[in-house]
Each structure stands twice: as C-alpha cells, then as structure tokens.
C-alpha cells in the first residue's frame, strides 16, 4: 500500500464512496423507520387517547342557566320579576395587578366602597379562574364607557343577565322572601349540576319553599373554543327549561291596605280564605326591602337591619309566638260544649276574681268589678276571664290540650313559606319533659284564658279561626295557588291539602260560639262593638290582650308607667260574613295594648277592603 500513497485509486475510492453511501442511506432508513414507528404509535395505537385530548381541548360544556319563574298575586300583579341587568365581572387569574385594574376601572364605572368590600369578600371564596362580580346593575352609560375601553382590561367582562327584582319593594317581603347569591351552605343542599351558571337561589320565604319550581332546569351548549377559551361555534345546544311562574293566593291590594292599616305599629296579620286555606294577606311589620339582598347586602346595611330593635327581618306572622290571650276563649268554650263539660245555659258568677278551692291566691278578671252572672255567650262577648277559669278547671288541662290541638294549636300549620314555628300548647307531658315539674291547677286556669305557657303564631290563629268559621273543616294554609309553565298560558292549580277535620259533635254548639263572637262585634256589651259598628256585614270576632309579663297579685297594670316593650300585645281574630264566611283573619299588634282598641280596627279596615270588592 505504501507505494501507492501519492496516486489516487479512483476505482477503489469510487467503491468506497458507493459503500459509504449505502451505509448513510441505511442510517437514514433506520431513523425513518423509528419515525414511522413513532407515527404508528401516535396515530394508530394511541389514536383514541389523543382524539380524547383533542376533544377536551376544543369542546367545552357551557351551562345555560334557566330564567327564574315569576311570582304574581292572585290578580296577576307581578310581585317578583327578572330585570335585564349588566354586571361587571373580573376573573382574578387573568389580572396581573388587581389594584391597578380596579383604580383604572373606577374611572369608567362608579365603584363604591361597598362594591369593593363585597368584591373582596366574594373573591376570597371563589376559585381564581372563576369570575367574581364587582358591580351590578351598570347603567347604559357605564356599559358604553367600558365597552369602548374593553381592550385595556383583559380579564374584565360585562355580563348581561337577568336579575331578580321585587317591584313593590317591601310589600309582602316576609311572604315572598328573596333570592341571594348561592353560598357554601346552599351548595351542600342543591344539585350542583342544576345550578351551574346560576348565581342566585331562594333564601327565605316563597322564593325558598318553591325554589325547585321557580328554578327550572339548566340547559347546556357544547361549544368549540380556541386555545384562549373564546367560543367559536356551538355544536349542540340543549335549551334550559325556564322555571315555572307562581300565582299566589295573595291579594297585593289587600296586602297593601293591611300593611298601611298598621301605621307605625309592629305586628302581624294573616288573612285566610276559609274555603281553601289560601292566604290573602300576610303581614309582618316592620318589613324590609328584599331587593337589598339580591346582589349581596353590604355589612353596614345588614347590621342596621339585624340590630334594629324592631327586628324588621323577623317574620312575625310565621315565627312570632304570642300568648293568644282571650282570642283562645271561643275555642276553649267550644271544647267545653262539645265535650259536655258545660252547656249554653250554664251560668257562672263573676265577682272580678277567681279562687281555686282551698287556695288564697286570687286570679283576677280584667274587669275588677266583675261581670256578674255570665253564660258562655256573654262570657265570650264581654271576655269574662272568671267564666273561663272555671270552665278550664272543669275541663282540665288534658282535655283542653287534646281539644285545642285539633285546631292546630301547638303545631306548624304547614304553610308553604319556610321557617314556620310551632307555638306551644302546654300539657302535663310537655311540662314534665321541658320543665321537669308537675302541672299545677293554677296553670290550667290561665291556659283557659290564653295566658301562661300557651303560645300561638298569627298564622295558627288565622287558620284556627278559619276552621271555626267552617265548622271544623280544616284546610292547610297555603300561599301559592297555581303554577304556570313558561310557554303555556294555562295555570295548574296546586293541590290543596285538607287536614283532619275537627269532629263536630253538635253543630248548634259551633253556632252558639259563633253567635257569641258575633255578639263581640255587634252586641250591646261586645268588647269590639265599636269596631263592628256600621260594617254592612256581620263579623264574628274575638279580641285578646296578651300579657308580656306577669303581674304580681297586688300590682296594677298601668300602661303609662311601663316601658313600651312591656306593654300588652293587642290581638284580634275574626271571620266574616258570619253566615257565609269568606275571610278569616288574625291580627297581632305588638305592645299595642287592648285588642279592641288597636288590633280590631286594623282587622276591620282589612275586612272592609276585602268584602267591599265583588266576589270573584
């Protein structure tokens, strides 16, 4: 080889090159084979996997929240509707400098301190990738101003939506309730899927009880999005089913008259149609504006409502538990008749006080001079306490408990507004369980005049009065009459539940008690005869005055020297017209004083309003 160093061997070099070319080609072939293998893996073996990833990439499911059902009164007046509104939302994840963004935003839209506080609060409880509302109800001008500068605010969006609105503000607020933003507690109780895209949920009142009906069913659209999440087109759309509208038994006009009739007084009134238990008016005063709660009430306003000594947020008609006072007497009296403990002609002498045999303690009558000799009719008409002390003692607590229980005292009426309390109808068992004490005869006496342990709610009183008016027929109180599907003008009446009727032993017993209640309004000595005057229709009523605190035997009740908080509650129950009852009512005026002076005139105003209208 050494001898051929300087000359090139073209043939062998050509062969060498050919050989090397094949090797290079082989090298390339191997790598191409690897590539093809990789492609077969990606496109054939793992194809399904990547198809899934690709679809996940591009297809997103967007919820389409349903429109909430509307609420109308019995005459079709709208009580809760949905207004189009624009809200400003910020997605924190997309914001680099939140303070800067907020300060720049505040030059375009009005951002108050309360908005900022609410925003901060909501932001802390929301995942960073979800939008948090900063402002609600933007004005058209604000929307326009922001729209022009939209590009300067990535992560800030104006969202058009419907916002719950209560056009009559505080009217019937305690019946309607309100919606508010879905919170942690709500999330545990709802089907989260049904609420995707929905921000609000019924919190109290009808809005809560009928949440499912009002809410509707969520719809979905499958959309194709690009890498930025911008929606490009809709693939499949399942439209939402709007919530059903509710038509109430409530008469907004009557409600308004009833609320006005209270003046500045606190209290409650429930007006019921005895034929079916439909609630015609549902008053709890003072009231509040439910619109405040829809988009998150600010702390200061909420605290002022919460700490208000008049407790405007307290639903008195449903949760206010008051001693019924003398309004219980017709029921006790009827019990005495029906159970054969007494009869209409039986007379009791009222000296102005009552003593248990062998006891010194005197149970006073409200009329210190006494009513003299009274029978059941005059005892109810004049509201003689002594007669009922005596009757109660004769009946005994067990019989009273059992009989009054049939009217629904001491139990929830089951009205379709959430949060009802049961009141209290005492018994031996109750006292032993709750107080660990035996029942004393003295307690039987004062139960007979609706004092002592016994507590009733205004809705209970109204319902029991309606039951009395209907000779024992009990209808479950309710406030929603019918529902309406969104694309169908027809109404679907809700089933009205009859409750176990109060058994009638003898109808004349009922007629006797009702006649006595008529005497209250129209008799010469009736406690509310002034209220019954010139009614143009006959009313059966009963006044009541409930002691807020117990007087010692020698103490005098002197309204002038007492703190208003200790004044007696003023109560009144009634139904009218007597012959063909169309309406039953219970009124409680807190610390109003005597029933005849305060509660009864309010009831009369309400009855006048209702009965003056032609029967539908």
């Amino acid at each position, binding site marked *: 080889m050494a001898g051929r*160093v*300087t*000359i*090139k*061997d073209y043939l062998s*070099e*050509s062969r*060498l*090159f*050919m050989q*090397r*070319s094949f*090797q*290079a*080609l082989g090298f*390339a072939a191997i*790598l*191409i084979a*690897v*590539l*093809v293998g*990789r*492609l*077969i893996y*990606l*496109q*054939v073996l*793992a*194809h399904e*996997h*990547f*198809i899934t*990833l*690709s679809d996940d*990439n*591009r297809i997103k499911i967007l919820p389409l929240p349903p429109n909430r059902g509307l609420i109308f009164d019995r005459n079709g007046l709208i009580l809760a509707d949905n207004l189009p509104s624009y809200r400003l939302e910020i997605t924190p994840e997309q914001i680099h400098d939140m303070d800067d963004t907020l300060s720049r935003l505040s030059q375009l839209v009005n951002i108050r301190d309360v908005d900022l506080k609410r925003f901060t609060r909501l932001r802390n409880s929301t995942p960073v990738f979800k939008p948090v509302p900063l402002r609600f109800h933007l004005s058209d001008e604000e929307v326009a101003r922001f729209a022009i500068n939209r590009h300067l605010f990535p992560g800030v969006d104006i969202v058009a939506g419907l916002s719950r609105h209560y056009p009559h503000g505080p009217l019937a607020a305690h019946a309607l309730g309100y919606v508010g933003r879905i919170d942690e507690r709500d999330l545990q109780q709802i089907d989260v899927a049904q609420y995707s895209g929905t921000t609000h949920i019924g919190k109290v009142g009808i809005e809560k009880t009928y949440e499912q009906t009002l809410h509707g069913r969520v719809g979905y659209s499958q959309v*194709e*999005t*690009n*890498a*930025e999440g911008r929606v*490009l087109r809709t693939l499949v759309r399942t439209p939402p089913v709007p919530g059903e509208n509710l038509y109430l038994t409530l008469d907004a006009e009557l409600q308004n008259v009833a609320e006005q009739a209270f003046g500045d007084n606190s209290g409650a009134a429930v007006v019921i149609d005895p034929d079916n238990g439909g609630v015609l008016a549902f008053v709890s005063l003072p009231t509040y504006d439910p619109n405040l709660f829809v988009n998150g009430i600010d702390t200061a306003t909420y605290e002022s409502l919460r700490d208000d000594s008049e407790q405007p947020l307290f639903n008195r008609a449903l949760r206010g538990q008051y001693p019924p006072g003398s309004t219980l007497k017709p029921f006790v009296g009827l019990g005495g008749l029906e159970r054969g403990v007494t009869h209409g002609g039986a007379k009791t002498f009222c000296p102005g006080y009552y003593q248990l045999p062998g006891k010194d303690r005197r149970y006073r009558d409200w009329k210190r001079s006494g009513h003299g000799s009274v029978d059941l009719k005059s005892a109810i008409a004049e509201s003689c306490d002594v007669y009922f002390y005596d009757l109660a003692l004769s009946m005994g607590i067990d019989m009273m408990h059992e009989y009054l229980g049939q009217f629904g005292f001491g139990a929830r009426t089951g009205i379709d507004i959430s949060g009802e309390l049961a009141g209290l109808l005492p018994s031996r068992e109750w006292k032993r369980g709750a107080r660990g004490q035996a029942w004393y005869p003295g307690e039987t006496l004062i139960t007979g005049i609706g004092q002592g342990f016994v507590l009733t709610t205004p809705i209970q009183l109204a319902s029991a009065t309606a039951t009395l008016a209907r000779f024992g027929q009990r209808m479950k109180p309710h406030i929603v009459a019918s529902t309406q599907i969104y694309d169908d003008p027809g109404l679907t009446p809700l089933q009205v539940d009859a409750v176990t009727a109060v058994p009638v032993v003898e109808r004349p017993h009922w007629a006797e008690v009702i006649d006595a209640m008529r005497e209250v309004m129209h008799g010469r000595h009736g406690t509310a005869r002034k209220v019954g005057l010139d009614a143009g229709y006959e009313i059966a009523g009963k006044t009541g005055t409930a002691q807020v605190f117990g007087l010692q035997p020698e103490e005098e009740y002197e309204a002038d020297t007492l703190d208003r908080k200790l004044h007696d509650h003023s109560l009144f129950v009634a139904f009218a017209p007597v012959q063909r009852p169309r309406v039953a009512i219970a009124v409680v005026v807190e610390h109003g004083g005597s029933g005849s002076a305060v509660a009864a005139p309010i009831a009369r105003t309400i009855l006048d309003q209702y009965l003056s209208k032609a029967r539908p």
Partner: protein
Amino acid sequence: MSTLLDQSREDASRRDWQHILHIDAVLLVSLFALSALGLFVLYSAAGQEQTVLIRQLVRLSIAFGAMALVAQFRPQWLQRWTPWLYGLGVVLLIAVLVVGDIGKGAQRWLDFGFVRFQPSEMMKLAVPMMVAWYLADKRLPPDRLQLLVAGVLIVVPVLLIAKQPDLGTSLLIGSAGFFALFLAGLSWRLLGGLGLLGAAGAPVLWHFMHDYQRQRVITFLDPAQDPLGAGYHIIQSKIAIGSGGVFGKGWLNGTQAHLEFLPERSTDFIFAVLGEEFGLVGISVLLVIYALIIIRSLHIATQAQDTYGRLLGGSLAMTFFIYIIVNTGMVTGLLPVVGLPLPLVSYGGTSMVTLMAGFGILMSIQTHRKLLTT
C-alpha cells in the same frame, strides 16, 4: 439505486433537454410535488389566508430560480471558488457576532442597509463544499492529520453559529461536514471514539448552553413538567398528530391547528398539521417524496466523476435528510425542540433558497458530467 432510477443511466452523447438546461427531471418533479403538497398544508395551517400562500409561492419561485441558476455553474468552477466562499462566510460570521442584528433573542443577521443577510445560511453550503474541496486531491480514506484539518474547518463555523445562538443551523452544518467526512471513509473506530468523546463532552456542552436551550432539553425529557410553558408545543403537536389517526381529520378540518392550540403551526410545527389533517397516509406520501429526493440525490453523488462532486453531493443529500429527521423528530416528540423548518413545506424564506441552491449544485454535478468509458 442505479436500477431504481434507470433513466439516469443516461447516454451522455444524447444531448437531451436536461443537459441543455442543466436540470435533473427526477429531482425537479419530486421537488415540485413536495412544494405542491407543502402549499396545500400551509394554506390550511395559515388559516386559509391567500396572502400567505402568495408569499410562499413567491419564495418558492425565487428558490427554484436560485436552483436553476446554481445548476448552470460547472462543479469545477464551484470548486475553484470554494475556499473564497468559505473564507468570506467565516469572516461574515465573526462580523455577525460583533455587529449583527438581534432577532428573536439571537444574533443572526447582517444588515447591509438594502438587504438583511444571514451568513449562517451561506455556510450550509460553504462547509460541505470546503470539506469536499480539502479532500478532493487527497487519497481516501483520509489520514488522521487530514481529518484533524477537516475537523477544524467544520468546527470553527459550527461554534461561531452556535454562539449566535442558532442551535438548529449549527447542528445542520455540523452534520453536513460530518457526512462529507463519513462518505470520504472516516474509519468506524474513529467514529466510535468521537461518539464516546461526544457523550463525555455532553456535560461540558450543557455548561455552555443558554438557559433556553437547557430548558428545551429538560422539556424534551419531560414535557409534562411544564404543560403550559415550553412543554406545551410538544404536547399539543403530539395531540394534533395522534388525533389525526390513519386518515386524518380532513383538509382544513384540523381542530388543533385551526383553533390555535398548535403553536408555530405554519412554520416549524407544520408537520403536525399535516399529521392531523391527512393522517398517517398523508405523512407517508410526504415521506415517500422525501425518500425519493434523498435517494436520487445520493445516486447523483455516486455517479459523480470526482471526489469533490461525490463528497459535496452526498453531504448535501444527507443534510437534507437531517433537516427532515430533526424537524419531524421534534414535532413527534422524539427529539428536543430545535428550530428547524420542514424543508419546502414550512412557511419561511431564507433557508428555502439555500436548500434549493444545494439541489442546484446536485443538478450541476449530474448534468455537467463528461462522457466516460464504463
């Protein structure tokens, strides 16, 4: 090879149009087919924008023009000017490092006022030409000293380009030089030694890497580590190709591409668009065309009548292959992300002209042969 491309065993006495125009028909048709396929995919990848298509057509025309022009120069003439070209290239590379424009975070451009020029592009041709020139009159296989000299001729521009930094181009130029040496008969033992040296030098190389280059390697090794950052490219392109399946989603129907999940979809990652819309079938067509071009190019090299033509032709053919395998390997997640386009398919200008000039050289080698006795 020679049996496969029978017609190339031409009768030199017959002065057909290929020799008059100095054009190789097989290469030309293959390149046209490739460009046509590329335009189809690009139209889809660029969101059906006609302006993109027109610009790419203009570039292709310029590139094919450059090819035809270069093909007119006799290989001997090219050989004579090789050292000057190479020398100029090195000087310009140094100039780029000193005064070059910075584009996309790297210094690659020289701005002459009227035209911006990327010297590294020139070196894609100048380096294999220089190695071929150096070994042209040597006896092959080269001895160690010659290998050392050739090695220096390769490594200097590679390092200068890597410093810009332009990893893709320096890789390409390095392989161009390497394949010239390999085809010249670089011994397997030395090759093995170099391989070991390379493996041992990897940590040193790591030390000299830029952060973004290191990140690319890390991301390549574990794309899931950074799914929204650097790993995003790889993950999304794998999804695009994989979801294409055997037959693809159809032209213009690639969701990954059209919904902008796929980054760089009309440039470096256009292969993923092809894979998504045309599936394995479409990719196979592309690979067959590529294979045809590579085989034809290597065949031309083996038919060359001198060492310079053989080494240069073979090196250009293998450089073309490296282009393809680095790009497709990157897009399919086999290799780290290195910024190299898919030849004649990706949208982009400068490298296309250089590439086609390379094919011009191959055509020149093929069509300027003298009649030889066999």
